[in-house]
């Protein structure tokens, strides 16, 4: 088993994505098929962007097992008051400034759901959010 852990810096939009890049590189090095790597990289990158633009960063943990990969993203941000609404394509609470950076189209969580085999979102308003994504190998 391989366990990877990353602190995602919420104040640094420029370096956002470094954790996902590292995971992508690691998966390539251990011989995971490229189509699966792409799904995992995109889903984790969306999660990383979400943590930076909505929650001032957080923790990303990746567990690599022979038959599956699990990614857990935990933040102490403002939380999601209505998770079903947040899962709708096109719904976003991002500011105009975020949209000018190319994000905030309301596709983050829907993309994460589409690319993962299982997605679980747990959130408490004012306390934070935990997103768990699983990928079957």
């Amino acid at each position: 088993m391989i366990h990877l852990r990353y602190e995602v810096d919420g104040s640094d939009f420029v370096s956002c994505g470094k954790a996902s890049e590292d995971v992508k590189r690691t998966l390539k090095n251990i011989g995971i098929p490229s189509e699966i790597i792409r799904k995992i990289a995109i889903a984790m990158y969306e999660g990383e962007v979400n943590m930076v633009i909505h929650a001032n960063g957080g923790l990303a943990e990746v567990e690599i097992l022979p038959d599956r990969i699990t990614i857990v993203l935990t933040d102490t941000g403002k939380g999601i008051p209505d998770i079903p609404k947040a899962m709708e394509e096109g719904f976003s609470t991002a500011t105009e400034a975020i949209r000018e950076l190319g994000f905030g189209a309301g596709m983050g969580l829907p993309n994460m759901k589409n690319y993962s085999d299982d997605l679980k979102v747990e959130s408490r308003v004012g306390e934070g959010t935990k997103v768990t994504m699983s990928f079957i190998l």
Partner: protein
Amino acid sequence: MTVGEVRNILNAGVLCGQDLLDVTEIKSACGADMMSDVLAFVKDQGMLLTGLTNPQVVRTAEMMDINCIVFVRGKTPDPSVVRLADDKRIILLTTEERMYPACGKLYRAGLSEGSSGKATA
């Protein structure tokens, strides 16, 4: 077509990846300023045309296995963004063309959207 042909069609400048122009084959492309849309609706794309120049354009390309980015409207990213792309062996071009004619010229030359569509993974 090769990225070298793309450069000629768009009369584009090369910001990095000069040595890759003639050995990189592009079979499909997309144009977008919203990276969320690129991540959601694009599959098997070889090239991205965009007016956005921040580092996340390069990171998005990296995640999507896109190997060439064309900046439209004469935009040029910060040197740090060029270095980031160069490190990842992603070719960066810049053209004075606006998004619509840039896409139109490439489409007319035979570069389609390929297998794009909503990715269902």
